[in-house]
C-alpha cells in the first residue's frame, strides 16, 4: 500500500492516489510561495488564456462544465453568461467566507496555494471583462489572509496582477478583503452587502441575481474559492482532459472533508461522480472505516445544511444530481460521520442551534422558527419534552419550508426519498437548512425522541424555570 498520508504542513489534508487538479502542490512545504508556484506551471494557465480571445476562454470553461463548489453546484461557465451585455463595469467577488459546518477546503486552498486562486481570478476577469476583483476571506482565517496578502504582493511585484498584466493591455486589481464572523455572509447577496459595508443580510432574489445587479448595483460574478482554483489547471490542460475525470454531469475532481467517527478523517481530492460514499468512508485510500469497528448510524453528506444519509445510501456516488434525487445535496463537500453511539436528538440540536445563532433575523419564519426549534429540541434533550413537541417541531419546520422536506429513502419503513431542494418562505436557504437535521432524525429515529419525551402534555405552572434569585411576590 502506498505510504500516502497526512501532510504535516497542511493539517487535515491526505495525499492519496486521486486526481490532483487543485491540490497538486500541497505536498510541498513551500506551496504558497511564488517560487514554488512558478516552478510548477504557475501562471501558465493565465499565459495561455492571454494568447486566446476572452470569449474563447469563456467557451473553454463552459465546455468543461466546472460546477460551482460552494454549495449550489451551478456550472460556472453558465453563470458567467448571465451578465447583461454592455452594463459596465462588471465585478468579480470571490467567496472565501467558508463557514458551513463540517466544511474546509477553501481554507486549505487559500493557505496552501494562494497563487492558484489568484490566477483563477485573473483568468475569470480576462474572460468576462471584469474590471475589479474583491477577494473576500473569512475573518477567522488569519493564515489565509496572510498568505494571500503575501502572494498578491509577490504577484504585483512580478506584473502578474495590476496594470498591463504580462505586458498586455489586460489590467485588473485584486483587492483582498475580509469578514468578521457571520455564517450568512457566505450567501452571495449577503456577501455583497458585507462588501458594501453593511450588515450581512441577504437580498431578495429572484428576480435579480448578482450577475445582473450585484456589487454597487453592477453586474457581479460571485464564485467560490475552489471553483476558481480549478481554472489554471483547466487552461493548461484543456476541457477534454478535465472531463476525463469524473462523470459526464459532474466532471473533474472535488475536495471533500470527512470528519467525525472515522478512522482517518481528512480532506481528500476525489473524482466527482465516481467515488461512492462507501469508498470514501471505508476505503483504504480514504477514511478506512468507522472507529472501533462500530456500526455507521448516519452521515451528513454535504455540509450542515444537507439532509442526512444512512447506511442504505452508502453506495451512491458523490454526484450532484444523483444525491439530489435521493433527497440530499453534495453542497460544500463536508461529510460528517456518526456511529452507533451518537445521540440523534443531541446531534440534531447542535446543528439547529447553529442556524438559530446564525440567522440574520431578516425573515420572520427563520428568525423565530430556528429559535423555537432550538428551544424545543433542548427541552426534549433535557427530559422536559412534551408529547406534542414532535408535531410542533414539524409544524415550525413546515412554516419555514412548506410541503414535503427533502429526505433520504427509508426502505425499512417503505418510505421513498423526497428530492432536493426544499421550498422556502424565507429569502435565503439558511432557515430551510435548519429543518434538515430535524426531519432527517424524526423520520428515522422517532423512537429516540419519544423515549426522551415525558408523558406530560403541558408544563404545570409550578414548573416554571427556576431562577437562582428569590422572586419577590406581591
Amino acid at each position, binding site marked *: 500500500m502506498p505510504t500516502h498520508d497526512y501532510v504535516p504542513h497542511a*493539517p*487535515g489534508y491526505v495525499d492519496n492516489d486521486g486526481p490532483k487538479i487543485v491540490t497538486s502542490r500541497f505536498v510541498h512545504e513551500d506551496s504558497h510561495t511564488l517560487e514554488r508556484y512558478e516552478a510548477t506551471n504557475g501562471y501558465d494557465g493565465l499565459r495561455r488564456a492571454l494568447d486566446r*480571445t*476572452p*470569449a*474563447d476562454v469563456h467557451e473553454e470553461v463552459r465546455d468543461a462544465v466546472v460546477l460551482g463548489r460552494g454549495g449550489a453546484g451551478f456550472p460556472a461557465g453558465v453563470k458567467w453568461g448571465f451578465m447583461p451585455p454592455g452594463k*459596465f*463595469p462588471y465585478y468579480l467577488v470571490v467567496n472565501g467566507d467558508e*463557514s458551513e*459546518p*463540517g*466544511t474546509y477546503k477553501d*481554507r486549505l486552498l487559500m493557505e496552501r496555494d494562494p497563487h492558484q486562486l489568484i490566477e483563477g481570478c485573473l483568468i475569470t476577469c480576462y474572460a468576462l471583462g*471584469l474590471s*475589479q476583483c474583491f477577494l473576500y476571506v473569512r*475573518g*477567522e*482565517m*488569519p493564515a*489565509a*489572509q*496572510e*498568505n*494571500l*496578502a503575501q502572494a498578491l*504582493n509577490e504577484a*504585483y511585484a512580478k506584473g502578474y496582477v*495590476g*496594470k498591463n498584466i504580462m505586458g498586455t*493591455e489586460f*489590467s*485588473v*486589481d485584486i*483587492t483582498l*478583503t*475580509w469578514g*468578521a*464572523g*457571520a*455564517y450568512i455572509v457566505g450567501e452571495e447577496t449577503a456577501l455583497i452587502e*458585507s*462588501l*458594501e*459595508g453593511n*450588515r*450581512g443580510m441577504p437580498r431578495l432574489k429572484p428576480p435579480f441575481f448578482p450577475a445582473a445587479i450585484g456589487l*454597487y448595483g453592477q453586474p457581479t460574478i460571485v464564485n467560490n474559492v475552489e471553483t476558481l482554483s480549478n481554472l489554471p489547471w483547466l487552461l493548461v490542460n484543456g476541457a477534454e482532459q478535465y472531463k476525463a475525470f469524473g462523470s459526464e454531469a459532474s466532471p473533474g475532481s472535488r475536495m471533500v472533508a470527512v*470528519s*467525525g*467517527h472515522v478512522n482517518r*478523517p481528512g*480532506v481528500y481530492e476525489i473524482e466527482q461522480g465516481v467515488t461512492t460514499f462507501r469508498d470514501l468512508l471505508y476505503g483504504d485510500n480514504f477514511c478506512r472505516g468507522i472507529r472501533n469497528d462500530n456500526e455507521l448510524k448516519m452521515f*451528513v453528506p454535504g455540509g*450542515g445544511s444537507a439532509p442526512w444519509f444512512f447506511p442504505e445510501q452508502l453506495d451512491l456516488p458523490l454526484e450532484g444530481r444523483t444525491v439530489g434525487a435521493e433527497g440530499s445535496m453534495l453542497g460544500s463537500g*463536508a461529510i*460528517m460521520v*456518526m456511529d452507533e453511539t451518537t445521540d440523534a436528538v443531541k*446531534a440534531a440540536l*447542535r446543528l439547529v442551534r447553529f442556524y438559530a445563532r446564525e440567522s*440574520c433575523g431578516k425573515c420572520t419564519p427563520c428568525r423565530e422558527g430556528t429559535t423555537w426549534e432550538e428551544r424545543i429540541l433542548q427541552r426534549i434533550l433535557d427530559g422536559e419534552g412534551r408529547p406534542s413537541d414532535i408535531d410542533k417541531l414539524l409544524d415550525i419546520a413546515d412554516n419555514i419550508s412548506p410541503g414535503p422536506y427533502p429526505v433520504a429513502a427509508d426502505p425499512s419503513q417503505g418510505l421513498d426519498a423526497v428530492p432536493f431542494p426544499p421550498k422556502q418562505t424565507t429569502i435565503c436557504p439558511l432557515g430551510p437548512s435548519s429543518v434538515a437535521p430535524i426531519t432527517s432524525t424524526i423520520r428515522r429515529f422517532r423512537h429516540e425522541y419519544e423515549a426522551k419525551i415525558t408523558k406530560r402534555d403541558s408544563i404545570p405552572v409550578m414548573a416554571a424555570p427556576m431562577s437562582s434569585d428569590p422572586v419577590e411576590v406581591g
Partner: protein
Amino acid sequence: MSYFTADNLETAHEIISRYPRKKSALIPLLHLAQEQEGWVADDAMRQIAELTDTTPAEVKGTGSFYEMFKFHPVGTYMINVCTNLACQLLGGEELLAHAEEALGIKAGGTTADGMFTIEDVECIAACTEAPCLQVNYRYKLRLTTDDLDQLIDDIRNGRATDIPEHGTLGLVRQHIPAGAGAGIVAPEQATERPVWLARNDTADEGGEA
C-alpha cells in the same frame, strides 16, 4: 484627536483607497481598530465614520452584526472552542467545559486579570482535526484536556510566542506598489467596456467555432 496611531492612520487610508466606495472599507477598518486596542472603542467608530463618510451609528450598526468585533475590553487571549457537530462528536463540549473549569469562567466571560476570554464558537473549518480551538484565531488541533492545560500554562508564562495579542489577524498586509495597480473602478467612472474585450471583435470576424 486621532484615535488611530499615525501608522495605522496611514494604513487606514491605504485600505480605503482600494475600494470604489469608502464604506466598503468599514469592516477592515473595524479590524484595524481592534488590532490597535484589542477591542473597538466608541472613539474608534467615530473616526472610522469620518474616514468613510458615514455616521458612527452606521459603523456600529454594521459592526454589531459581526461576531468578531468586541465593543468592550476582552482578554488578551481569546480562546474560541468549537462545539459544532464535528467537534461535538469528538469531545468539543468536554473541551469547553474543561477550559471553563481551568480558568474559572464561563463561555463569554473574561478572567479577572484580563488575560483570557473563552467563547463557545461555531465551526472554525478544521473539522477533521477535532476537537479544535483557536487562540486569537490561531489553530490548535486535536486537543486533549492535557494539551489545553499545557496551552494555558504556556500562555500564562509567556511561552506562546506564536500567538499575537487579540485583535491582530494576518501579519502581512496587502500593499500595491505605486504605479503597479490598475486602479479602482467605480460604477460611475467606467461605462466603457474594458479594452481587452476588443480582442473578441477580431475573433468574430474570423468566424469562431
